[in-house]
Structures are given as structure tokens and as C-alpha cells.
């Protein structure tokens, strides 16, 4: 029985790993034989069949930047509200939590349509980096908030009692104790949100648009990597090779993001005062 349990556990993990390896291998094998580093620095030509993806990378990073600038303060604020004020405002906290659960189950295409109606049309941002980033922020917010809130809930009870017993105000406690403690979870939440946002296509089609030239400002339309892959595969005959190469860049970008944040987290834990 013990052996069977162990075997099943290994099998599940092995299958998962195999899927990742096969996917990465397929993308890398099909990309590397045509890959040239100029692909990263050139503009796309002929609808993306030729040339590179430089403006696409920049647009993607700008969309991610807008998304993170919104998501971190707003998500952290909401997570703090849910964890720190749940005793005082249980009904409001319950409603917000339910709303987040519903939001996390909404398909991304619906976020795209909503983002289009709110940011592009109602607020007049049009197809732009702003609209794309803000839509992604709304979409990824539940995941970010849940991660940070779970982290805040692991704070030992004494770290809340002691500040109260010293007559520290809530603002000081949140600023000096809770937020520093929650920072690693903010980073983890950020990484998960970036991962989700980088992979997003449907929500961006209706918000940041298709334009594959270099955006001149955040009010310009910009094409994200995932949309570029989708477009080359579905709408551009002969675009498969560059779609594969773009997919490889996207995966490398996800690896780099995860790797960088892992290093940041490890450094943080080494220097961290909380043990």
C-alpha cells in the first residue's frame, strides 16, 4: 500500500513534468533552428512573417507595468482590508470576498469586453496600453489579493497583540509590522499575476489592440506577445515559424521573471528579520 501511494504520487508529478518538458521541447526545437538574436531587436515585417518582435516586447512590458502599478497598491490595500478589518466590518468583508470569488471565475473574454466598454469607450482611452494594463489588473486582482491575504493571515497573533499593548496605532502596526511581513507574499502574488497576464490574450484583444508598431505613449495601441502568437498562428499564413519563436521568447520571459523573483525572495529571507 505504501509503495502504491508513493508510486501514484511520483506518477502524478512525473506526468506534470513530462507535459512541461514536451511543451518546452516542442517550442524550443521549432524555434531555435530559425532563431537569431536580431529577432529581439527588429520590427515585425510583412504582418509578422518576417522581421522581429521588438515593439511587441516593449508593448508587453508596458502593459505589464501598468497592470502591476495598479495591482500592487490596490491589491495590497484590499488584502489588508480583508485581513485586518474583518472583525469590525464582517458583512462588507464577506461581500468583498464573494465578489472576488466571482471575479476569479469570470472568463477572460468577459474581462476583455468589460475593459473595452469601460476603458476604451466610456473613459475614452481607446485601444491603448492603458486600457490593456488596467483590464489585466482587474482580471489578475483576485489571484494577487488571495495570495497576499493568505500571507497576512500567517502573521503570528503576538505580532498583532504586542503593538496594541504598546499603544501603537493601527497605521503604524500595518506600516511597520504587517506590510514588511507580507512583502514576500506580495512578490509571490506579483509573480503569479505577471504569469497570468503574460499568458493572456482574450482580455487584450479588445483593449490594447492589435497594432504591431512601437507605441509612442501609453495612450497608443500595443500588441502583446500572446496576441502576436495568436495572430500569427490564426490569421497570418506562413506565420508559424515566428509564432514559435515568439512563444519561446514568452516562455523565456516567464522563466526569467520567476527566476528573478526567486532570487529576490531568497535574498529577502536571508536578510529578513522575521525568523
Amino acid at each position: 500500500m505504501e509503495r502504491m501511494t508513493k508510486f501514484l504520487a511520483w506518477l502524478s508529478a512525473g506526468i506534470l513534468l513530462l507535459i512541461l518538458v514536451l511543451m518546452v521541447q516542442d517550442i524550443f526545437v521549432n524555434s531555435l533552428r530559425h532563431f537569431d538574436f536580431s529577432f529581439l531587436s527588429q520590427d515585425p515585417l510583412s504582418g509578422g512573417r518576417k522581421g522581429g518582435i521588438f515593439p511587441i516586447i516593449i508593448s508587453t512590458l508596458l502593459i505589464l507595468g501598468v497592470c502591476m502599478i495598479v495591482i500592487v497598491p490596490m491589491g495590497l490595500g484590499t488584502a489588508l482590508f480583508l485581513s485586518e478589518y474583518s472583525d469590525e466590518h464582517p458583512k462588507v468583508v464577506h461581500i468583498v470576498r464573494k465578489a472576488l470569488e466571482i471575479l476569479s471565475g469570470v472568463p477572460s473574454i468577459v474581462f476583455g469586453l468589460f475593459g473595452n466598454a469601460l476603458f476604451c469607450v466610456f473613459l475614452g482611452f481607446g485601444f491603448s496600453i492603458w486600457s490593456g494594463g488596467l483590464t489585466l489588473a482587474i482580471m489578475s486582482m483576485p489571484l494577487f489579493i488571495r495570495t497576499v491575504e493568505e500571507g497576512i493571515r500567517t502573521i503570528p497573533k503576538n505580532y498583532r497583540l504586542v503593538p496594541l499593548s504598546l499603544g501603537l496605532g493601527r497605521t503604524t502596526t500595518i506600516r511597520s509590522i504587517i506590510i514588511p511581513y507580507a512583502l514576500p507574499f506580495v512578490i509571490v502574488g506579483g509573480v503569479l499575476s505577471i504569469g497570468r497576464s503574460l499568458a493572456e490574450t482574450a482580455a487584450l484583444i479588445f483593449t490594447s489592440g492589435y497594432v504591431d508598431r512601437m507605441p509612442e505613449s501609453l495612450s497608443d495601441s500595443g500588441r502583446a506577445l500572446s496576441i502576436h502568437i495568436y495572430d500569427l498562428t490564426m490569421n497570418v499564413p506562413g506565420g508559424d515559424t515566428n509564432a514559435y519563436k515568439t512563444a519561446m521568447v514568452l516562455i523565456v520571459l516567464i522563466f526569467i521573471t520567476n527566476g528573478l523573483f526567486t532570487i529576490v525572495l531568497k535574498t529577502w529571507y536571508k536578510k529578513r528579520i522575521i525568523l
Partner: protein
Amino acid sequence: MNQNKYPWVKELGCKPCCELKPKIKIKNLSLSYGKRQIFEDINLEINTGCVTGIIGPSACGKSSFISCLNRMIEVVPSAKVSGDVLIDGKSIFDSRLDLNELRKKVGIVFQEPTPLPLSIESNIILPLKEHKFDHISERVEKALRDVGLWNEVKNILKEPANYLSGGQKQRLCMARTIALGPEIILMDEPCSSLDPISTDVVEKLIHDLKGKYTIIIITHNLAQARRVCDFVATFWYDGEKEIGQIIEFGRCIDIFENPKNKIVQDYVGGLKG
């Protein structure tokens, strides 16, 4: 202090610091958690500058009792307190009272050493800044000197407080409390998680603090109560009424050598635990 007026001060071998002038007056204090009554109608006077021990078995309401004195009990949502606690004649339940000021005035040292996840010095600096004290560095040094920790930590002030040993952490917590200049210090079994050497250091510290502060200490260690306390209140759980109550309060020497209550006689005599 006039030792002729208070001969027991000399008799106890205490520093001549206590005044038989009540600092805290507890009047008909009752506490319940939801429907469960914890204690009822407690009346007690705590004298200025003295060390008052609270002894008694577990789960008879000792910690809940001292948590009422700085209103920390209010963090328990189901807690309901009635009666009154007067400090220097003023009710701590007065709606106009600033709760943070009360907790600055009535400091508490918890059972477990609880340094905040900050550096050693920040543990003291943070509350000092919050209460807008000036000369912060001097105050930090003085507080650490008062608890005998300065020489041990003066070169590692910026190191995490959690790097310290259990006894050092507890003294840091005491330093953090006394840095705020409280008038009353509540101690909830401050030595229960410490080894005998650290316990000895903390006891000496309590002895040094006597007179400067009014101290209330909960302890399960009767020998410790005998060593450090001037007065002792014995809490007991009344099985019939299912509530905690003070069955005897008096001078430490009387409680240990000439208790009036039979239960206290058995308890301090080791026949009942």
C-alpha cells in the same frame, strides 16, 4: 518611606519603596466570554510601587483579570466587562480616555518573549516614536541599561531581535515596556518559558524596578512569588459557581506563613495544586 510607619516593609526585606496608597482600585469587576462567566465582583486595591503577585491554578481567570487592567481584554470579541477599574482615581473605562495612552501608562510583559520582527533597537524605537518621545537614542540606551541588557547588545543593536536568547528577548520586551515610562507594569508569567539563570536575571530586574513602577505579576511559581512579591492575591476556581474568584489577598508574608483560607493553606503548603 517611613519604615516605622510600615514595619512590614523592613520585615519583608523589601526595598523601602511601597506606599500603602492605592494606585489601582478594582471595583466589582466581572468578566464573561459570551455566556461563560470567568470571574465576578472582584474588589482589590493595588498599592503604589509594590509588586503584587497573582497566584492560583490554571484557568481560573488570572490572565483575563490583568488583561482587563489595560483593556487588552477588548481584543477578544466575546469579552464583556462590567464594574470599574480606577487608576489614580480615574476610570479606565471612561469613553473620553485615549486607549493608546492607557496602554502606554499600563505596560504589559507577556508570558512568551514577544519581540517584534524588527531589529533590537527598532523594538524600542518604534513605540517611542509612536508616542512622540524625544531623545530616542538616550531612552533606548537607558531602557536597555535598566534591564541589564545594554552590555550584551550594544554592538548588535541593528541585528534582528529574534537572534537573542529567550532570557534576552524577555528583557528586551521589558525594556520596550519601561522605555515608554509606564506607571504600572503587568507581567503575565514572565519567567515561565525561561531557564533558571534567565529567571534569576528577570527576578533581580523586578526587584530593581520595585518602587519605580507598580507591578502586578502572575506566577505559578510559588517560590518566585515569595521572593519577589510584597502582596499576593490568590485566585481560585469555584467549582459550584463555575467562576474564578480571589479567595485571599494580603501581604506576601501573611499569605505564605499565615494564610487564613483553608484552600490557600493547602495550596501554599503544597497539599493542593
